[in-house]
């Protein structure tokens, strides 16, 4: 096996190209999701908080599904070539979806873990503001004894 793209066989190059195409599809979708105003809101939603967004799932699954569909109807050498691209796409798509699901789960669990601490910080901030305002409005009592002593002299 060689890592040098110039020395890879045609099959290995096609598999690698399939993976790269799948990756660019996923990150292209992510860019649109984050920056494109007309991105469909349904694709920004999640079926479950522990899953990636619907758009990420679709962008992850679509390339290998499409390529395997093309392979099913292709004939001859095109079938083999498309099959290699589809395998490369699948080699990227499955681990990518697993990885993004783990990351989404970690984000959700982190959000839950940080929520009590954030609520406590907010409550403490409100208490401090209330205490501060009360101490400012309470007038300090004046001792009448000081005036009596002065007038005595």
């Amino acid at each position, binding site marked *: *096996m060689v*890592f040098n793209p110039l020395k890879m066989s045609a099959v*290995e190059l096609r*598999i*690698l190209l399939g*993976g*790269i195409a*799948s*990756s*660019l599809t*996923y*990150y292209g979708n*992510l*860019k649109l*999701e*984050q920056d494109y105003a007309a991105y469909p809101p349904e694709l920004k939603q999640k079926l479950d908080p522990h899953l*990636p*967004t619907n758009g*990420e799932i679709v962008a992850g699954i679509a390339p290998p599904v499409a390529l395997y569909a093309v392979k099913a109807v292709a004939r001859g050498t095109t079938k083999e070539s498309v099959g290699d691209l589809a*395998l*490369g796409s*699948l*080699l*990227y798509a*499955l*681990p*990518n979806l*697993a*990885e*993004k699901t*783990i*990351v*989404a*789960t*970690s*984000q*959700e*669990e*982190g*959000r839950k*873990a*940080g929520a009590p*601490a*954030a609520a406590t910080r907010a409550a403490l901030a409100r208490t401090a503001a209330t205490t501060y305002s009360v101490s400012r409005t309470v007038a300090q009592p004046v001792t009448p004894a000081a005036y009596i002593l002065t007038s005595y002299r």
Partner: protein
Amino acid sequence: MFDPVEKRLLVGALATGLIDAGLKGYFAYMTAAGTPPAAEQFPYMTIHPCLPTVDEWLALAGVPVALYAVGKGMKKESVTQMAKGSGIFGVSELVGITSFRVARYAEGRPLRYVLAK
């Protein structure tokens, strides 16, 4: 559905993905909890705004190289094939992350870490 070679490729790719998920998952967890890792904390350091972070290089390039070295050292073709699958996933993910980072940098909005919201 898959022949033994394809299965080994997939196992290698999944192994790399899970290791990368562990590193990214920790970053995502700590960030969501309100205590993100410090900017220069190993391994989440940034080499350049256009390049993947160190943890991404470790997982996506380091794991394939390590598997390849083990496969060649032990003279086991199965491990070398796993390294190939690992390398296909690793290179694809590095290309995707780099292109995303370059696009954001070109817009003047560089990212510290590439994570979906």
